[in-house]
């Protein structure tokens, strides 16, 4: 055999997309390991006088700020000793046993420590994790969220894409910026476009945390989710917060009638070089418990912007599914990731989404890119709008509800056009830089920002500044819309403003239907208890999912 001769087959394999991904071996000493690091503490608990005085081998006097917060605000000390006495296998068994109800699991699992929770999840294989997700998701109906961003922050493109996403069935839309100072205009585009697409859709603007609160106070966004928590004290402090400051912020949101959830994810601590040798899942267990302790209704997790880290190590994507499950176990809404570029390989990126898509979560993606990835200012999502027909086909292939519905081209064109015209009217009424009829036309038929004529950016930025400085609020937008003949859209905005008064959508896993009726874990709790129970697709919904427009109708042939 010739020493330097190469195999033709291996040559082909090396050229495959999967070889463009980064794969890394485990390095346990620093915590570059997904689950079950030998450095994770051994689970233990001691309760004295209703207080946790020892947790996972550490005495109370030695607790760091996270451990103290979790021990005092999350762990139910009245059940802790009973819960911790159970073996990890026994607890894992409860999760997959259809005859053990979610309520009982929550009662017990709120008595567990971070080390115990992560050790229990390490007993489950990926199919068992999915079985448990199906039962533990807090709300019965699964849902989906979209990213709506533009590489040029084009306001018309944003409004049109927001409208299309709402029309396609997303429950929430999230934007961020290419240029920070555009933020207020992006929020406005999503508000107007989203309510054109489907009244009731929730919109948010992911930015610096005090700005997010301010823009919400103006009624231009309905919720926030990029409020980050971390699993080690040093990373939390480097992120310029503590569990107390973050809890205070959470209450500030609720005090203004705004929905919010926290964000965390496996890999963030080791990415910052400060995982203290602990596994990613153990540290994430602490994040979920901080969220629970803060009294926040939900959490966005599933590694999120660090997905390349668990994605590179063995069993990392299983850990990502496990962290979603952990969030559900503790009774929190989960916006379950799938929201960042994860792999060059179409096979890998599809497989990465299967656990959340097949089991169903409150928001399967957080979010699905409703624009082409080149326009995605979250640095790209795992799926984008150009994959949407594949997604519809998967819903149909497996008879699953992924939250989207097939649509007709003519209807999408109509809804995009209306969104562009509504925004044109609002800009005109508020004295913002004009949106021309040519721009309306371009937005109506565009795929992405490359199809849009350029805007005068400095002039747009002045308008953005006016929103913040002159105290322009959702009420001004409502008046502009009604005055210019978009009464139905104005009505939808009033309906959204009423949510800030009733506070119904502050409850766990809330979404708002087209008539302003709020559904949540309170009035639509998950009732799964084995085959034939839990979320059951209606006949009508199944007919809708079946009807992809490009399928051949036997009668037509």
């Amino acid at each position: 055999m010739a020493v330097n001769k190469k195999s033709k087959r291996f040559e082909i394999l090396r050229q495959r997309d999967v070889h463009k991904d980064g794969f890394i071996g485990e390095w346990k000493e620093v915590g570059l390991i997904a689950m079950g690091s030998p450095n994770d503490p051994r689970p233990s608990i001691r309760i004295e006088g209703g207080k946790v005085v020892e947790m996972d081998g550490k005495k109370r006097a030695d607790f760091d700020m996270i451990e103290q917060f979790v021990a005092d605000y999350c762990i139910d000390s009245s059940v802790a000793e009973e819960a911790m006495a159970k073996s990890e296998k026994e607890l894992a068994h409860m999760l997959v046993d259809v005859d053990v109800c979610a309520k009982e699991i929550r009662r017990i699992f709120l008595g567990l420590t971070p080390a115990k929770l992560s050790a229990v999840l390490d007993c489950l294989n990926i199919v068992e994790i999915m079985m448990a997700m199906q039962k533990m998701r807090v709300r019965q109906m699964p849902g989906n969220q979209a990213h709506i961003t533009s590489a040029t922050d084009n306001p018309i493109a944003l409004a049109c894409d927001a409208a299309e996403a709402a029309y396609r069935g997303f429950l929430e839309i999230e934007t961020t910026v290419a240029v920070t100072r555009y933020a207020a205009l992006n929020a406005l585009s999503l508000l107007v476009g989203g309510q054109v697409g489907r009244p009731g859709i929730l919109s948010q603007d992911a930015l610096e945390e005090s700005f997010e609160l301010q823009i919400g106070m103006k009624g231009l966004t309905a919720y926030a989710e990029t409020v980050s928590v971390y699993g080690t004290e040093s990373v939390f402090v480097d992120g310029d917060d503590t569990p107390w400051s973050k809890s205070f912020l959470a209450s500030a949101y609720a005090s203004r009638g705004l929905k919010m959830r926290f964000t965390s994810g496996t890999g963030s601590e080791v990415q910052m070089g400060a995982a203290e040798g602990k596994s990613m899942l153990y540290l994430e267990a602490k994040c979920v418990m901080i969220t629970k302790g803060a009294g926040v209704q939900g959490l966005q997790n599933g590694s999120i912007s660090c997905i390349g880290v668990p994605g590179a190590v063995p069993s990392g994507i299983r850990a990502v599914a496990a962290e979603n499950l952990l969030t559900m176990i503790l009774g929190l809404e989960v916006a379950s990731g799938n929201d960042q570029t994860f792999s060059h390989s179409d096979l890998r990126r599809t497989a990465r989404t299967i656990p959340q898509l097949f089991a169903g979560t409150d928001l399967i993606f957080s979010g699905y890119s409703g624009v082409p990835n080149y326009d995605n200012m979250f640095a790209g999502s795992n799926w984008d709008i150009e994959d949407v027909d594949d997604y519809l086909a998967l819903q149909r292939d497996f008879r699953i509800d992924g939250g989207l519905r097939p649509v007709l081209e003519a209807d999408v064109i109509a809804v995009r056009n209306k969104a562009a015209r509504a925004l044109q009217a609002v800009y005109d009424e508020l004295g913002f830089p004009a949106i021309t009829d040519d721009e309306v036309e371009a937005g109506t038929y565009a795929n992405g920002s490359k199809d849009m004529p350029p805007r005068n950016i400095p002039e747009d930025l002045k308008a953005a500044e006016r929103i913040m400085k002159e105290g322009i609020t959702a009420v001004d937008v409502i008046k502009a819309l009604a005055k210019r003949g978009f009464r139905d859209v104005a009505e939808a905005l009033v309906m959204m403003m009423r949510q800030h008064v009733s506070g119904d959508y502050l409850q766990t896993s809330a979404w708002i239907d087209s008539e302003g009726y709020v559904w949540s874990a309170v009035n639509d709790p998950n009732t799964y208890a084995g085959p034939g129970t839990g979320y059951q697709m209606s006949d009508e919904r199944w007919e809708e999912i079946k009807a992809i427009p490009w399928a051949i109708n036997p009668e037509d042939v």
Partner: protein
Amino acid sequence: MAMELNEQMVAELVRQVLKGVNGAQGAPQVQKGQGGLGAGDFPLAAKRPDLLTGPRGKKFEELTLDNVMSGAVAFEDFRITPQALEYQAQVAESAGSPHVARNLRRAAEMTRIPDERVLEMYNALRPHRSDKAELLAMADELEKKYEAKICAAFVREAADVYERRHLLKGDLPEA
């Protein structure tokens, strides 16, 4: 035209499915919270609008587009009240989420704090921003000026934790 039909259809279907599920399973345990309201009263906007008002006393049903256009209702009327947050806390408790209820009760207290001061207080609670005396003074302000007893206790607790974990102002090496 086809579009509007579809929209209505979907909205109707979703409602039917979910209302059906609720009815059939009777799932939410209607168990009254201590204060009175329970999961069965949710959503308040549909089931107990009589309990809801804006902060200036406008009734929930008065918050309409016509009243916005006439100027009878302004932006300031679209704001949650401490009472509404207390009702939602009761609903959360009754639905088995005492943690959420606790957050909503802190929030009820914070409705009395102006926007700008809330943001300042949040920043003051961030690590290495305040010394212990400043945090304790903020707790006193919360308690005395805004009747925010829960928040005040929370800030006092933070002051102790920050002291123990060296998270107060001055605990960081300066350049």
